[in-house]
């Protein structure tokens, strides 16, 4: 296992979101974390890079316990685990090239000119080279998402976390992002953890799927295990029926 969550709990005020999530992730696999909105999928992966802190439990990365690390001690972990955020989160005041160069300058201490040249290469990889001088506001959602992926890949992380990478994209852009994720795992050997609701993505590129329900991992297995599961909650999620046994927060 490269990553292991052991019985993690997390509450926001009186609201208990995670009630004992335990999950292991193998190196080089594409693991999808799925579940209804507000169930704690994004919360789970944000603990891995110290953006949120667990209340109880343990998180292990590559044989090292990381849930107790300080903000500064998390810097080297964030070099090895990258994250593509749901809303791309490119910095509006910087061009795409500058956005992609930023982690190289800050994490690796690279000089500006060299970091910008490296950024150009990364943007080429996601077919965004010709837009390097543009500002994020001048681009479509799909293009911003690709640039955000380039920024994450610039540090050559071993693990990449994707928070709803295809949300808000047209089907063609969504499938391109899917292909990019699969290629990352197949060609570079990168471990990809994807939080998603997109069933097409889930049943196209995943190696394994973890279904979170009521603050715990309800089912974890490969695509076949999900397709053939007799669990009524899993079946309702897959079929997308509005009525059934599943309790959805807020409904």
């Amino acid at each position, binding site marked *: 296992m490269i990553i292991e969550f052991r019985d993690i709990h997390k509450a926001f005020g009186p609201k208990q979101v995670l009630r004992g999530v335990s999950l292991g992730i193998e190196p080089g696999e594409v693991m999808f974390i799925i579940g209804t909105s507000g169930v704690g999928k994004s919360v789970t992966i*944000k603990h891995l*890079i*110290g*953006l949120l802190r667990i209340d109880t439990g343990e998180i292990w990365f590559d044989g090292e316990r990381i849930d107790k690390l300080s*903000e500064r001690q998390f*810097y080297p972990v*964030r*070099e090895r685990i*990258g*994250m593509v*955020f*749901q*809303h791309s*989160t*490119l*910095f509006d005041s910087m061009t795409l090239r500058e956005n992609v160069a*930023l*982690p190289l300058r*800050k*994490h690796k201490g690279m000089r500006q000119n060299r970091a910008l040249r490296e950024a150009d290469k990364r943007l080429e990889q996601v077919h965004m080279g010709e837009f390097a001088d543009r500002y994020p506001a001048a681009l479509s959602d799909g293009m911003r998402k690709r640039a955000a992926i380039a*920024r*994450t890949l610039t540090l050559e992380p071993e693990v990449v976390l994707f928070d709803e990478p295809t949300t808000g994209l047209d089907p063609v852009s969504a499938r391109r992002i899917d292909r990019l994720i699969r290629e990352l795992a197949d060609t570079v050997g990168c471990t990809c953890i994807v939080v998603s609701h997109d069933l097409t993505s889930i049943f196209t590129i995943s190696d394994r799927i973890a279904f979170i329900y009521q603050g715990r991992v309800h089912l974890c297995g490969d695509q076949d295990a999900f397709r053939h599961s007799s669990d009524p909650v899993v079946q309702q999620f897959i079929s997308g029926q509005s009525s059934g046994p599943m309790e959805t927060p807020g409904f």
Partner: protein
Amino acid sequence: MNPRRRIKRAIERVGARTLDFLSAALFLWSVFAHTLVGTIRGKRPKGEVVKQMYIIGNKSLVFVGVTLGFIGMVMIYQTCLQFGRITGDLSRIGHEFAKILVHDFAPTLTAMMLSTRVGAGIAAEVGSMKVTEQVDALRMSGVAPIDYLIVPRFIACVVMMVVLSIFGAVVAFVLGGLTAANAFGVNTHTYFDLSGVNFTHLGLGLTKAVAYGMAIPIISGYCGLRAQGSSEGVGSATTAAVIGSSFAVIVLDFIISAFGLIVLGEGL
């Protein structure tokens, strides 16, 4: 509900609020300490301080000038009116107004104005970055959000607060003088008498300007960094920043004035 359970709930509520308050106070202290360290360490985006000085200073010139100008005119008009009724002697109006402007009114009124314009701006900008996860993206890129977002605004605000306070004092004093001369026939040579202003007044005014300049970006940045949710959270952070900054200005004014009065006594 039985009384024992009701008491237990009440104690839990008080405890939760106390913990919330302590955690907020700790976070505010941490923002302040990190900002000071960041300012000394000098790690900040290139050109950002100058940009922020332009936004905070140059873009507030008209706002501060008009506000302080009107306040100066109204204060002199009212003072002349009352003094005229009581003593009829308006010869020391300018002399006294200059002193009070330098050591109190100019920095405090300028800061009150900047709490609204600059405080709201900082909280809205930082808050929207927080709720759209840009602050998290900065952390992922190896950038300390306080170094990147708060430190340049902190330095710019301290510098521009001093500059704007001086500018505001000049505008209020000059327009007050014109009002006194035109409405009450006060001799301009008598009014424009700065002999009463000494280094103590200047020092006190400067101390207040620097203190306000430090408080506004710290409190506004803190409110922005605590923003949660979506646009509603940014709105709440902005409101909290304006209220918090204005409140801090008033409290700091009281503390520094009281300190000045105790230490300097009649010198004021």
